[in-house]
């Protein structure tokens, strides 16, 4: 057995898994505070990655400047999307709202193709050296940055929801909207805020992936990949989303390892997580961390 390759793949799995975790957290955030299953989650990554790419190439901004502007843009994007498209849907049947998010997903995919074309583009070079050696493992700078950013987002997320007034208000709204209102919390504001945060953080993941793989329209499939992660963790659990994300990330890579070394089926990378998901849901229908009475989709 090629242990070195396996180790490398597991590390890759963790790094990617953390990104899945971040995107999964955003998905859970929107689900918990607005009860909307957002099928346009992947497009947040896509739009964010393209917008950042535009800042870096068309406007020739330095990377961190472009990155921060992208986050500001995406925060506004998420808030506006909620206010213009989803707010009028409040009170409509869940299935209608889901159709709307599927519609949004298709719309933004097409829009990005229309604006930026169909061919993948790579980001300008950001780091001097491509990779660093840590504990004998070869780790790309971009991967290292990805890990640092993912972990920072998770810590910030935790602190925000544990200590900040707005984080508490969002949790209160997720618990019960009428109680939140009775405390003077504007539920409308919370909805808009949760979409803004989800769009911003997901876009961060999009930019990070863009740095490594370049931007292409396939980025939005990340939204599809995050599904097994959040369903595995339980749709309403933030911790579950992180654990689910890590699990899927590692699984993909381990499956890839066994496939390339022994099985030679091909494509295991993409499908293995879904098989594992099926098996786990068989035993735990609400996910590993989920609570019961949750919308099953």
């Amino acid at each position, binding site marked *: 057995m090629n242990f070195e390759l396996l180790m490398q793949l597991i590390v890759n799995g963790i790094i990617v898994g953390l990104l899945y975790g971040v995107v999964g957290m955003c998905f859970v955030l929107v689900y918990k505070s607005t009860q909307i299953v957002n099928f346009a989650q992947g497009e947040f990554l896509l739009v964010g990655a393209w917008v950042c790419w535009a800042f870096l190439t068309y406007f020739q901004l330095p990377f961190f400047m472009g990155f921060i502007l992208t986050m500001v843009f995406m925060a506004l994007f998420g808030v506006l999307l909620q206010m213009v498209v989803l707010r009028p849907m409040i009170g409509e049947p869940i299935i209608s709202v889901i159709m709307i998010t599927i519609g949004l997903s298709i719309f933004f995919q097409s829009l990005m193709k229309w604006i930026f074309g169909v061919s993948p583009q790579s980001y300008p070079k950001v780091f001097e050296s491509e990779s660093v050696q840590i504990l004998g493992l070869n780790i790309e700078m971009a991967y290292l940055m990805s890990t640092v950013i993912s972990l920072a987002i998770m810590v910030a997320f935790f602190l925000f929801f544990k200590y900040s*007034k707005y984080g*508490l*208000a969002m*949790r*209160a709204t997720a*618990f*019960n*909207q*009428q*109680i939140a*209102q*009775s*405390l*003077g*919390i*504007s539920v409308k504001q919370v909805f808009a805020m949760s979409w803004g945060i989800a769009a911003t953080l997901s876009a961060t993941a999009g930019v990070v992936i863009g740095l490594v793989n370049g931007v292409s329209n396939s980025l939005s499939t990340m939204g599809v990949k995050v599904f097994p992660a959040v369903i595995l963790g339980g749709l309403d659990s933030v911790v579950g989303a992180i654990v689910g994300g890590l699990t899927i990330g590692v699984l993909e890579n381990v499956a890839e390892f066994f496939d390339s070394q022994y099985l030679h089926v091909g494509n295991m990378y993409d499908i293995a997580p879904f098989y594992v998901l099926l098996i786990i849901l068989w035993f735990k229908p609400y996910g590993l961390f989920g609570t019961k009475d949750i919308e099953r989709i």
Partner: protein
Amino acid sequence: MSQPAINIQPANPILTVNNIEVVYDEVIQVLRGVSLAVPEGDVVTLLGPNGAGKSTTLKAISGLLKSEDGEVTKGDITFMGERIDNKNAEDVVRSGVFQVMEGRRIIEDMTAIENLKLGAYTRNDSQINQDIEMVFNYFPRLKERTGLAGYLSGGEQQMLAIGRALMARPKMICLDEPSMGLSPLLVKEVFSIIGQINREQGITMLLVEQNANYALKAANYGYIMESGKIVLDGTQDELLNNEDVKEFYLGGGNEERKSFKNLKSYKRRKRWL
């Protein structure tokens, strides 16, 4: 701070509800012309049997009706000289009215302190931590409970709900059935703290109750409501000595026959009228 003299005709009401009608889901009329006035600094109670419309009246005041598809279709509500009947719930809180909803409605997956902090959501000053201490002074046992609020006992949850209201530094608190489901001993404790808060903090209270005995003793003035209308109102003395009130709400006026009645008091209250 001191207990104001009892007014028969409230001279300077902080809250006036003027002939309101409330309709749910555009067809179900629940309130049919309810009027009441709450003088500043007083405790006023609103009594009545199940389904009379007490909670609906409070929700009309606090703006929470809208989240239940309810609407004030007629009449008006004025708080400190300002119309509040068309305001959002969050704006009513900002005007100084805070409702403690029926059934406590604390946030179960948060700690007591987090619940208290959320009570202060509309505030922007730096006194919030001092006020948490103040709440702990009123309810010392909350301080020891550091776990999730969902695991608190019913009485502790009620205390937390009242404490959370205090955190908003409101001018008026609307309490919806604070005695619901509590043991007689706890009811006594909760009512005495409500009185204490009213005196010490000068917070006006509108107290909806089924427990007429305690409510009338705590209040300066009372209204009795049935089927969406006010059928009787009067000062504490007037109501306590009214024959109908004695018969229907105070259980024959004989408060000493406690043992048997207490056992069945919950059931008896639910049978009212």
